């Protein structure tokens, strides 16, 4: 299946990941539930990963895939810490509504 890019075209992959990325952005801007926002971040990450892998194939260079692995490691860490923070926020103010987190007000 090495010639997949010849058949599908790298353009389509780019469109796909861009759209997926934008779906993630939409989730972040549209939702108030922090946990869903976190999921959206994961979507964005996945979109980026996908594109990395595609370009890795395109350039026939394994580095891109290695970076996907690293990105996954980072994503895992991020989710773990992010969820921990969410838990602690929930415990403190009883909600994870993003619009209620206004302590940053200057």
């Amino acid at each position: 299946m090495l010639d997949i890019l010849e058949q599908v075209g790298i353009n389509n992959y780019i469109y796909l990941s861009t759209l997926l990325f934008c779906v993630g952005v939409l989730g972040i801007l549209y939702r108030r539930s922090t946990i869903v926002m976190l999921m959206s971040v994961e979507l964005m990450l996945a979109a980026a990963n996908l594109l990395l892998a595609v370009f890795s194939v395109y350039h026939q260079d394994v580095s891109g895939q290695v970076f996907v692995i690293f990105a996954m490691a980072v994503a895992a860490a991020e989710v773990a810490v992010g969820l921990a923070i969410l838990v602690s926020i929930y415990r403190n103010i009883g909600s994870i509504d993003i619009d209620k987190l206004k302590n940053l007000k200057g």
Partner: protein
Amino acid sequence: MITIIFYILATITLGTGILTVLAKNPIHSAVYMVVCFFSIAGHFLMLNAQFLSVVHIIVYTGAIMILLLFTLMLMNLSDQHEPKKKVASRIAAAVSVCLTAIVILAVFLKANVVIESYKAENIDFQSVQVIGQVLLDEYMVPFEFASILLITAMIGAVLISKREKKA
């Protein structure tokens, strides 16, 4: 044939992605996300990146997904009705997203990816073996750092979510 599979997969990816974002119940979101990630794993497979595909399933659907679900259930959020944002901010969100999409696509179009020059050379560059070698040879140090990062994240997560003793 492959093109058709790609389109199907792409539809699933985008569709479940949008459902993830829009589903009212967070649990549903999580489930849609799993489906989405499976489809991405499928993409990886089509690209002949088996290792990535497997890792992706393990990490996202195995680990992250479980974490999310646990948290959701822990907080008992599923039955909580999430209030909608104000109309203005929803419109602003939609506009921003469109803008982002247009901008990024425009960037790619302007960058002018030259698909014709692509030639499959029959070299094995992405089998598990090769990845393993590269990962533990060329990227040895970052790899180790990734493990440190994970440990730190774990400790951090434990520390942060630990209930503070009321003094």
